[in-house]
């Protein structure tokens, strides 16, 4: 018998059709668990499988779609084993033991993963891993991960499949009519990630009929390098007398599938509503058609959960600002676990036009691997830009790559044997683009010849790991021109020869070139323009630096990468008028060129002082007013004379119902923006704080808007908030409260089901830290409820929490 892998991609293969809908026609009720039928009605299950084999299906899914421990607990092994046995029996009865395969069918868990949901990624891998081990042991021939609506969950399942078996792994995801998955990804992003992870075949199932699936399949044929599977529903569903029916009969289904087969897909079958009749028709039609083998696309693509970005089409900007090197404020944020600061850097760079973000969180004093994991995971809820994992720490690299929902970039490998041996296995396993530095054991060659030679060595070594050249991006390295006047020329030549001789993409961290020189931006931006002319594919730069962005857009217009100069013209609307910015670039200021405040304010009679700006809720103006004021007054005076009185006035207005929540929050934001400027001047010094407050949304609760509103308000009033986030275990809250001697803990819960966790947290706090006060709030909370669970205070809004804090620390 030829193996599945031997046949996949070299001849037509046919999957089965709907299983659940077939069982429903045999009496399975809505909401009833189909997997239990493997044990309760094996004959019915066998007859469904058998009829598919007889209709011509080469692959039949065992009835294990929803089988996982969340649903079946300790009956899981019994259920999966019975399912595989049923499929084997069907195959035997149909006489297909020589050419029929059984797929272990893995569907979604029904839980959404962190950061958008509450299921931790590693737990998802573990849940799927258990299914894979049982299924492989029971004798499945391959694994189908299907009906995935979230690329992140699909990644967890693929890793589980590969880490727990050697079986072929196929993945089919579900798209809507716009070609998007329910969680936002598309064909481009899913192909980049899944091919990176090394799946055997990729495709689509469920959600749509073959008519609506055609354009999605077309896009996949253009994108994917591995074989493509297409398994649509029998058209679109509608309700008829309380039953779901689909709008295509077998003939019309097959007509539509005929067009999909012509596109050059490789495996076809059906999903909900299709029956053996549909598959029989499909086999008849496709066997008449020539089989088109999959074509390798050789493109260099990185991706996020939502989209893919191709390297090499036009020069990409990789934002460099998430990096503590030389940044006091950033180091402080890392030490204090102030992730919001890092996230803001991400948003600002994205708004300024970055295509991807470099993430470097290395600092000797912190646990880099867990910081990397946290930052990479949380960033995915904040920005949809692809990420570049920048670290020299192997564990940090692996944890970052593993938790990332997309195809990441690794920064970096170099020509040293040890470096390649560390990085390449991880790049291969998780599927990443690798930045390769042209240096090795003997250092950095001065000439382009030497660097090209190292580039070749790295590319050859990568090939030995199964990493294609298209997944390598060469960094030709910039040495400072102040110590070697030929340094820039060597780099430019390396970039050009990578393009022309090696046909490989390139990347540079540009700013090194000007080290030791005055007015570095002038050198940097001019050099950047030259690298673009030499064919640079990606630049690691600061997109908030207007000089660099000017060089970027001007160069693109000049080298034929900006049709009709539209990009340049658009960018010009954001550039400032003066010739060259005098002081520090926009990077150090309150916003980028694109963050022009929505409303102009300093008209006659408008607000003028810091206090006014805060009362009016104008963040950008408050920040610059604070900057201005700091020249003459110290930060503490400003806080006491301007910031606090402004907030008090607004807070009082809120309590008197003259000011409403939006205004209150805008003022708090303005105060925070001003405070952030002052913090910049105070970084490293001892800060004045009114007190430490812990805030947390309790265990099992993932809605934290209320908590975040309270946080902003407390911070604007000068409290140090230890934000433990959402879904926080009571033990962690208690541990923090005890460790930091925290006198006030604020807890939020949205639902009656989670108030239980609130009560438990209070119980544990009382025991371990009796002097700590607890204030509670949230959608279902009332005074009576708060009393009954033993809270010290019920705050019906954010302002009340501030007042209560004042009463404790005041």
């Amino acid at each position, binding site marked *: 018998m030829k193996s599945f892998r031997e046949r996949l991609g070299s001849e037509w293969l046919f999957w089965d059709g709907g299983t659940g809908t077939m069982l429903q026609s045999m009496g399975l009720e809505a909401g009833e668990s189909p997997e239990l039928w493997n044990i309760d009605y094996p004959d019915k299950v066998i007859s469904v499988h058998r009829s598919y084999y007889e209709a011509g299906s080469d692959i039949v899914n065992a009835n294990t779609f929803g089988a996982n421990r969340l649903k079946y607990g300790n009956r899981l092994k019994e259920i999966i084993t019975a399912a595989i046995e049923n499929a084997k029996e069907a195959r035997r009865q149909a006489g297909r033991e020589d050419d029929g395969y059984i797929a272990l069918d893995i569907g979604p868990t029904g839980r959404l993963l962190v950061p958008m949901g509450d299921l931790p990624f590693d737990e998802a891998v573990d849940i799927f891993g258990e299914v894979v081990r049982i299924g492989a042991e029971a004798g499945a021939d391959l694994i189908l991960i299907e009906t995935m609506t979230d690329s992140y969950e699909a990644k967890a399942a693929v890793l589980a499949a590969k880490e727990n078996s050697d079986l072929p792994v196929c993945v089919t995801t579900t798209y809507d009519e716009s070609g998007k998955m329910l969680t936002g990804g598309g064909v481009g992003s899913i192909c980049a990630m899944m091919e990176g992870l090394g799946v055997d075949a990729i495709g689509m199932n469920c959600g749509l009929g073959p008519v609506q699936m055609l354009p999605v399949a077309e896009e996949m044929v253009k994108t994917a390098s591995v074989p493509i599977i297409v398994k649509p529903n029998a058209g679109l569903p509608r309700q008829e007398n309380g039953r779901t029916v689909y709008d295509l009969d077998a003939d019309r289904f097959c007509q539509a599938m005929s067009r999909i087969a012509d596109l050059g897909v490789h495996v076809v079958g059906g999903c909900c509503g299709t029956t053996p009749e549909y598959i029989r028709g499909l086999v008849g039609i496709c066997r008449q058609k020539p089989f088109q083998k999959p074509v390798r696309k050789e493109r260099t693509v990185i991706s996020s959960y939502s989209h893919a970005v191709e390297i090499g089409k036009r020069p990409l900007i990789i934002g460099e600002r998430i990096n503590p090197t030389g940044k006091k404020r950033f180091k402080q944020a890392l030490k204090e676990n102030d992730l919001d600061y890092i996230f803001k850097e991400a948003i600002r760079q994205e708004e300024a036009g970055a295509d991807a973000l470099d993430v470097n969180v290395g600092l000797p004093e912190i646990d880099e691997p867990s910081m990397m994991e946290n930052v990479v995971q949380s960033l995915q809820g904040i920005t949809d830009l692809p990420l570049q994992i920048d670290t020299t720490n192997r564990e940090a690299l692996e944890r970052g790559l593993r938790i990332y929902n997309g195809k990441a970039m690794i920064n970096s490998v170099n020509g040293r044997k040890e470096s390649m041996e560390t990085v390449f296995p991880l790049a291969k396993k998780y599927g990443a683009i690798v930045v390769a530095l042209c240096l090795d054991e003997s250092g950095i060659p001065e000439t382009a010849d030497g660097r090209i030679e190292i580039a070749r060595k790295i590319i050859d070594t990568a090939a030995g790991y199964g990493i294609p050249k298209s997944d390598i991006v060469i960094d030709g390295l910039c040495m400072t021109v102040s110590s070697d006047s030929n340094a820039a020329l060597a780099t430019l030549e390396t970039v050009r020869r990578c393009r022309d001789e090696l046909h490989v993409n390139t990347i540079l961290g540009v700013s090194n070139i000007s080290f030791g020189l005055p007015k570095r931006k002038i050198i940097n931006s001019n050099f950047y323009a030259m690298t673009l002319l030499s064919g640079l594919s990606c630049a690691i730069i600061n997109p908030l630096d207007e000089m660099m962005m000017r060089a970027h857009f001007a160069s693109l217009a000049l080298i034929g990468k900006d049709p009709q100069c539209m990009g340049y013209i658009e960018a010009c609307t954001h550039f400032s008028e003066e010739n060259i910015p005098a002081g520090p670039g926009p990077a150090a200021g309150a916003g980028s060129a694109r963050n022009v405040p929505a409303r102009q304010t300093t008209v006659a009679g408008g607000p003028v002082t810091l206090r006014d700006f805060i009362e009016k809720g104008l963040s950008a103006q408050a920040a610059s007013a604070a900057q201005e004021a700091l020249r003459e007054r110290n930060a503490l005076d400003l806080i006491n004379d301007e910031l606090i009185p402004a907030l008090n006035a607004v807070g009082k207005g809120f309590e008197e119902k003259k000011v409403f*929540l939006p205004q209150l929050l805008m003022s708090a934001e303005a105060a925070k923006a001003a405070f952030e400027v002052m913090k910049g001047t105070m970084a490293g010094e001892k800060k004045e704080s009114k007190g430490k407050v812990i805030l947390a949304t309790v265990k099992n609760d993932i809605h*934290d808007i209320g908590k975040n509103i309270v946080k902003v308000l407390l911070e604007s009033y000068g409290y140090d908030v230890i934000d433990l986030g959402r879904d926080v275990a009571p033990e962690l809250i208690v541990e923090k409260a005890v460790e930091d001697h925290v006198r006030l803990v604020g807890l939020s819960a949205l639902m009656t089901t989670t108030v239980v966790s609130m009560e438990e947290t209070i119980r544990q706090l009382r025991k371990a830290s009796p002097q700590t006060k607890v204030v509670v709030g949230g959608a279902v909370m*009332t005074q009576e409820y708060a009393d009954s669970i033993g809270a010290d205070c019920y705050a019906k809004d954010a302002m009340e929490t501030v007042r209560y804090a004042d009463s404790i620390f005041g």
Partner: protein
Amino acid sequence: MKIEPNRCEIIRYMGCRKKDCSAELLLDIENAVKELDTVISPRSVYRKFDIIHNNDGSMDIGNMHILSNNLKKNLKTCASCYLMGATLGIGPDHLIQRSEISRISRTLLYQAASAAMIEAYCNEINAKIIDQEKREGRYCRPRFSPGYGDFDISFQRNISDMLQLPKTTGINLTASLMMMPSKSVTAIIGVSDIDSRCIMEGCEICSKRKDCAFRRDS
């Protein structure tokens, strides 16, 4: 798909009163609605089930065995009902999470506007169902959701299974039975031969009615 949320509801969800809203705030609301419009991907599913009224006061709907006075009152004259699930998709959640970092005042706008949008979307689906039943001479009761009054939230799980919500709509449940995407609704809509009005609904049935900042004035 264009969803037109009720502006007054958005303002109420933000804890404001219409008469106190500045022109700027009203403009911000319009912009938030516009922005949300570009990120939502509304999906819904509904199916009709029979209701069995048991002698002990409980009801059976599909695989649910329900004891709830509030729901029973709502479904008193109904022999069947629709189960529905609807969501705006994950887009608003991303927008909200992102704004929590950069501008929390925007969060409030997105939160309020998207809450009103999912309501408006549910109203649209509900109207379709009402129309459908009206043509056959039947009437629909106001929709009723798990967790509302004494209708236990744990029935989320059953409704999710019966409608296959993760697959049909992308609605997932957390361990504590919250829905993600967060702008999602599940509900029961009773179908009756009798046209009756004036049953308790909305704020009047809620246990938080005494001190809720978002309670409707009348």
